[in-house]
């Protein structure tokens, strides 16, 4: 069989995967704190056209889609009226205590969780927001007025930074997990980040960029399909040699 079949198929797969990622980015255009995921392409193995021949020309075997990680930069912040809607201006991340380890997020739509006389700051999935020392943030409820000092809660929030935040692993609910490549989360130095109260960070997806990428991926897909088609027509020609 001719290689161009399989070369074409790798192209179809790679551009399909790229479209999946772009589609997910577009679907999350209104998700607070979402970071767009980038894709790129790499060419695959090359083999020698003739065996046992010195300086034989090389023939390529297609393409694969690769991830470029997340675009971890600052997103646009939008004012809301919530006292516990927080956005970070800077490179930092909020830390959350989840059931299986720490999570990091830039989605600061937090809430209060009451436990007896103590109010804990949690995110909307009920994971505890952590302070710079990695402890839960809490405040005691005033018995007379039954009010909670939210400003005091916000002041305690810890902000963490990574050497390489683009490598964070996305998990569900706008959260990310650290790994070997991101480096360990370190509490950000004073003044590097500011917490904006009454603001939420919008999705980092740029719809124009994503649409342009979608069109490119679609054209790439069409070209790959054309290669498969030509390979098929060649096989037909060969098969009809002895008509």
């Amino acid at each position: 069989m001719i290689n161009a079949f399989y070369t074409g198929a790798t192209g179809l797969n790679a551009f399909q995967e790229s479209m999946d990622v772009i589609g997910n980015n577009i679907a999350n255009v209104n998700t607070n704190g979402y970071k767009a995921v980038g894709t790129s392409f790499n060419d695959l193995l090359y083999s020698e056209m003739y065996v046992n021949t010195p300086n034989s020309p090389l023939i390529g075997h297609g393409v694969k889609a690769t991830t470029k990680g997340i675009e971890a930069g600052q997103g646009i912040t939008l004012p809301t009226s919530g006292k516990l809607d927080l956005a970070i201006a800077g490179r930092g991340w909020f830390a959350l205590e989840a059931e299986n380890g720490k999570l990091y997020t830039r989605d600061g739509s937090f809430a209060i969780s009451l436990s007896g006389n103590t109010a804990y700051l949690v995110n909307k999935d009920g994971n505890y927001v952590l302070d710079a020392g990695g402890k839960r943030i809490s405040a005691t409820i005033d018995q007379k007025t039954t009010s909670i000092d939210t400003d005091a809660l916000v002041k305690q929030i810890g902000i963490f930074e990574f050497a390489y935040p683009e490598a964070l692993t996305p998990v569900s609910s706008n959260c990310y997990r650290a790994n070997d490549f991101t480096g360990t989360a370190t509490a950000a130095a004073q003044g590097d980040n500011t917490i904006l109260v009454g603001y939420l960070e919008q999705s980092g997806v740029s719809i124009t960029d994503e649409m342009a990428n979608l069109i490119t991926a679609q054209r790439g897909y069409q070209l790959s399909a054309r290669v498969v088609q030509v390979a098929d027509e060649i096989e037909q020609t060969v098969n009809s040699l002895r008509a």
Partner: protein
Amino acid sequence: MFSGYYTIASGLLANQRNVETIGNNLINSQTPGYRAERIVNSAFEQELMTRRDSSGNTVLGDGIGATAVVVDDSLTVYNPGLIKETGSSFDVAINGEGFFNIRGADGKTYLTRSGEFDMDREGYLIMPGVGRVLGKSGEILVRTSDITIKEDGTIMNSAGNVLGQLHITAPEDYSTLERTENGLFISEAPLNDSNNFQLLQNNLELSNVQMNTELTNLIAAQRALQNCASALKTVDSLNRKAATQIAAI
């Protein structure tokens, strides 16, 4: 007698290889730094016409040699590709002449135009799957993605400390470059520092594959293959005539 068969079969094979190469170009039309490949065919009429005489010398035959076409070589097109903004701080495009230098796992220095870099666990700037990127004074330890790369290749962190300078080299003669895998090249001849370039951070140079050219070449190669196929049928019908009709007399 049957030489026509093999001549045409060699044509079929060469055109098929051409289709495969063009197909690979088309599929890599979005691969950063990819350089289009062209097939060069050559005839080797000469070789098959030679024969050995009684004293062992090679002489030109007096009959009609069986001509054949083979894929002789592949050429790489070194035209620059389009530069696209990506917004990723590890993406660098070369506007002008030259290549990035990468030290591969086998210790060799590879050249590439793909500036899609990353950071490894130890914090060095790498080209994923190939090796560490070489600066003017060796490997570059960046430790963070919060870096600035100036037009001359100087890499600085957010505190303004210089971490290294990307080494951009260019060959005197592009034909000395040898194509290897993953958009990488090896140079046997010594390389010079390139002076005629400008580096653009947050940008990537895309593939230099031109879809119109490649699609036209693809159709041309496909038709040439079909021509060979119908020529093969003609030779076949001639032979059939010889075998059936002449023998029938």
